[in-house]
Every structure is written in C-alpha cells, then in structure tokens.
C-alpha cells in the first residue's frame, strides 16, 4: 500500500509558473548491500518518474540507487489551462504507482 504525497496548488493564474512537489513511499534498496550470510540484497528502486498534464509529458526523471529512500522530487511548470496532472512511478520488481492532482486556472 504505497502512499504518495503530492503538492500542487488548487488554483493558479493563467500563464503562471507553479512548483510541484512529490514524495513517494519506497525503500530504494541500492543493490550494494549484503545480508549476514553474505548474500547480496537485490536492487529494488524506482527507476523512472513521469509527470503528464492533460496527457502531455511535462517532466521526467531517471532515478538511480543514489536517490534517497522515499523519493522526493520537485519541479516547475507553466499552467495555461485547467486540467489534471498525472504522476507515474515505475521501478524494479514490477513497481508501478500513479497519482493525480487537479488544478483550476483562472
């Protein structure tokens, strides 16, 4: 039951630049650690994060094991119309999660 926290302003002026903050629940196991018996702990990370607005990709990131547990990513975008942001996190072991947030542009 991975949780995500998204911070998108509910309203914005047309043409303004807004900041989007995202926090996703994930251990980001590096793949560089070993158990007491010497077995490698397999890598289990989020490898890709994408944000789309009304279906168009506006931001994307490739993540590596050096991204801290519970990845926190913030970025900016210009809003010209009301609509829906869709967020997608994809990773090892079939990890795939999405979240959404709406904005009203005045």
């Amino acid at each position, binding site marked *: 039951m991975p949780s995500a926290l998204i911070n998108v302003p509910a309203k914005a002026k047309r043409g303004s630049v807004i900041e989007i903050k995202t926090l996703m629940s994930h251990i980001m196991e590096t793949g560089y*650690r070993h*158990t*007491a018996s010497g077995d490698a702990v397999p890598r289990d990370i989020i490898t890709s994060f994408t944000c789309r607005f009304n279906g168009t990709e506006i931001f994307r*990131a490739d993540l*590596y094991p050096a*991204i*801290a547990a519970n990845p926190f*990513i913030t970025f*900016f975008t210009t809003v010209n119309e009301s609509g829906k942001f869709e967020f997608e996190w994809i990773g090892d072991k079939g990890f795939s999660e999405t979240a959404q947030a709406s904005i009203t542009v005045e």
Partner: protein
Amino acid sequence: MANSNHTTRRTVLGLAGGAAVLVIVRPADATPAMLQAAIRNVVGEANVRTGKVKLDIPPLVENGNTVPMTVSVTSPMTTDEYVKSIHVFNEKNPQPNIGNFYLGPRAGRAQISTRIRLADSQKVTAIARLSDDTFWSATADVVVTLAACTEEAI
C-alpha cells in the same frame, strides 16, 4: 519491507563496530574514470563549460542517507532558449549516476530538487543540457559526517 532493510544494516554496522557507520556497503568506489565515462555517456564529445548552473547542497551534512539538493539553471525558458535536461553525478558512490531530469520550455523555471545518498565526503556535479546542445556544469564538495551513536542491532 523495512525489516529486510534492518537485517542487512545489522551486518554493515557489525563490521563497522557500531560506533561508526558505513552508509552503503560497496564493492569499490566509483573511480574518476567511471565518473568520466558516465558524463561522456550524457554529453558525448561536447565540451562542458562551468557556469549557468547553480548546485545547492549543504557543504556539511548530518547524515549521508538523505541529503537535500537543488539544481537551478539560468535560462529564459522560452521556446527558443531553454534547458532540455539536468544530470547529476557523484564521485565516490558505487555508481556515478544520481539522476537525470528532463524538462522543456514549458517548465517556466529550470529548477529541480531531490534528496540523495552520499556514501562518503565527495564532489557532486550537475550538468545542464541547453536547447542549443551546449553543456554547462557546477560542482560542489560535500562533507558527510558520521553519526556517533548509530544502531547496531534492531
């Protein structure tokens, strides 16, 4: 999920004696050659100039497991002149890449933030690719202090 994490940490800390902690067990540090190769993978044969990029990262961090970092690039962010992507690298983690961030003119502001892991005190480099396919960079030194009282066993 956290429990498997703890089991492995115990091993790491056991080796470290409990008073000092290795953040990540690593086969070997990323060598400058690996770092150079990772950068070449992104920039190809292009020249990387210093400037335009600002890398905000604390010079001294309390814990290398979670280091806040912000990269911003000076750019008008118009359809003619914008930042295509930002790439962040490190010198001494087991792997030289930290993250690639792809933006475009509609970002409005060429700035990203995240939190990273640093296995040791080292240099962090951010490289921006602009719309004219020039590359600009900034590098910062980070000192990672080791906590005095860390966990040996759960």
